[in-house]
């Protein structure tokens, strides 16, 4: 396999600033999701009842000491708003940078979409506070990961790797339609899983027990499916000949495995060991029969919030994987549709000459 730095050597894609800013956005949004998850875990969403101000102050001018030294609820809720606002500023810069330097119109459109989305997300969060509405909180929780995924998408399609040319390294990659299919299904299921997770987390107080049970069953089933597909992808991409595809697949398998563990942990710290699994089963797990839930425990909330954040991370990785597979197959298709096989082989030879 070839190393990715070799692959991208000598490529000078346009719009470097937009790319760097989108990477910055990715790095800011993941912490934002952590803080947002904490807000829900601590039910602090209504700690600041007004919006867009904080207790009448402008968002950026809220007194630092009251914020940092005040109640924990207020600390995380106001922090969440501040961080969100900074991500909004970065999104504005991305639009400016790509409008100036980005040649592809669809990418420029996407960057504008990114900005619109962060604005919507802010409005949703604000409306959730002003209307004190749990359903809006759930929608806000679903748009967050989607926005994260879009940030990843923008940084993938503006990356150096995207612009790599049709050379010998690419032509030696073996990517079947099934690879594309697998990456697509994993992406779709990752987001489905986030929607289901949000339904579990933001359950309405008057929801029917039977509905909740069904949602949980679906969340667990899709989780297991996702894990199986990650194993399939691990096997399938190992021999594809491209590290830039195999690495995300490996990260995916690791994070889905971690996520299943965190998922079980999240269940237990919220609802205890499910008694319906049977008394003898529970007694066979050390400590389970005596397990005591501690509401609002610190480590408990870290587990829950980590589960939420790793869910978004899985979506981000699967976004990256799907886009790279699409791109690589696109390059490969170009080569096979425009050239017959011997010609393609010639192309390999000449391309590798050109590089060496």
């Amino acid at each position, binding site marked *: 396999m070839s190393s990715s730095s070799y692959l991208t050597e000598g490529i000078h894609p346009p719009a470097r600033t937009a790319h760097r800013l989108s990477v910055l956005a990715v790095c800011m949004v993941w912490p934002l999701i952590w803080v947002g998850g904490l807000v829900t875990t601590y*039910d*602090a*969403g*209504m*700690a600041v*009842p007004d919006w867009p101000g904080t*207790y009448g102050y402008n968002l950026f001018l809220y007194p630092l000491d009251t914020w940092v030294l*005040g*109640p*924990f*609820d*207020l600390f995380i809720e106001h922090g969440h708003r501040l961080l969100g606002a900074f991500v909004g500023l970065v999104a504005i810069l991305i639009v400016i940078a790509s409008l100036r330097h980005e040649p592809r119109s669809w990418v420029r459109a996407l960057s504008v979409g990114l900005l619109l989305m962060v604005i919507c997300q802010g409005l949703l969060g604000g409306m959730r506070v002003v209307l*004190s509405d*749990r359903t809006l909180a759930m929608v806000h929780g679903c748009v967050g990961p989607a926005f994260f995924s879009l940030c990843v998408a923008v940084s993938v399609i503006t990356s150096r790797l995207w612009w790599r040319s049709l050379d010998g390294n690419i032509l030696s990659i073996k990517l079947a339609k099934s690879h594309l299919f697998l990456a697509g299904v994993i992406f779709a299921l990752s987001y489905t899983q986030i929607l289901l997770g949000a339904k579990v987390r933001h*359950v*309405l*107080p*008057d*929801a*029917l*027990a*039977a*509905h*909740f*049970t069904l949602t*949980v069953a679906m969340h667990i089933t899709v989780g297991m499916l996702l894990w199986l597909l990650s194993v399939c992808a691990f096997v399938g991409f190992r021999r594809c000949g491209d590290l830039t595809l195999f690495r995300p697949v490996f990260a995916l398998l690791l994070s889905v495995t971690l996520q299943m563990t965190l998922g079980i942990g999240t269940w237990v710290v*919220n*609802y*205890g060991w*499910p*008694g*319906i699994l049977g*008394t003898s089963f529970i*007694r066979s797990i050390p400590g389970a*029969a*005596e*397990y*005591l*839930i*501690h*509401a*609002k*425990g610190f480590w408990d909330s870290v587990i829950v919030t980590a589960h939420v954040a790793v869910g978004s991370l899985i979506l981000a990785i699967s976004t990256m994987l799907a886009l790279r597979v699409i791109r690589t197959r696109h390059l490969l298709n170009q080569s096979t549709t425009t050239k017959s096989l011997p010609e393609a082989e010639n192309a390999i030879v000449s391309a590798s000459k050109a590089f060496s």
Partner: protein
Amino acid sequence: MRQAESDVADVMRALFGTPSEPAWPLEILPDIDLVNLESLRRAAGSVSSEKDGTHLGLFREHCVVCHGISGDGQGPASQFQLPYPRDFRAGVFKWKLTERSEKPRREDLRNVLIRGLPGTGMPSFSLLPGEDIDALVDYVIYLAVRGEVERRLLMGSVSVMGYGGEPLPAEERLVYKGDRDDAEIIVDTVQRVVQQWESAQDTVNAQAKTLSGPEDLDTSSSVERGRKWFHSKTANCVGCHGAEGDGGIETLDYDDWTKEYTTKLGISPEDQVALQPFRDLGAHKPRPILPRKLRGGTLRGGNDPERLFHLINHGIAGTPMPGVAIVEEGDGRGLSEDQVWDLVSFLRSLNGSE
């Protein structure tokens, strides 16, 4: 039946408001010692918090996923739990220091909230501020009183007032207006339920208070004697909890909350078809209650000697776990006080708190 439900619901709204906007019938119960109205307001309604960090809507924040809005124990996550979350409306509680048939004291409920119940879904809320716990206790009492009054009125309306057949004409329907006979039934029901709660608050459980364990509590000789009583015919703890308290006895029995819509109505808990109408109303699938494996286990109600004495004497309300009568001399009908203390020693030895 529909008519009865909606008429009773109207009466309930007039008396107690709704679980989201609670009220207390001050005209019937002018002096309120039992609950604090301000607490009820804080615990009810949707979740929010104030600038100083005070949380509102406490019940929805902490309890509703399991116990449900009206406290019926049918909250969204309830199906996963065994035992099922408590249905407060029956007014029966397990972990208390009052007599088996009595209501719990505030302090009992408070202890459950703070300690939690290990091995069940019931969390410990020890990290919440004390005033939140107090407000939640008030609210649990409110839901329990409200639910029990509602259910008694429903039953009464069918058995006494003739609901359930043809729809009743307006003048025969249950209404809560000061100058009619119904009002008396209603006032009576409310007062009776509240009276039970209030009298339980005053029982300082004379026995548990004055009792303190004998000198030789927890000594090996006391444990040995306790082991003998545990396996004896009189106490017959072994019949349910197995030899040495090791469990493993599959008694096919159900708790009272389940029996209410099964065996008490002559329906077998396994008869899915007959149960369907109740299941459609949200009733849980009956699941047997198992006697606890006592050796090596954690006791849900705690290990305190006085509490264990009380437990052996009164059993656990709402469950098959019986109480043992305390008699002057062990004579086959019960155990003497000393024998119960020996049993306490034995129980404490089982989970390593000697």
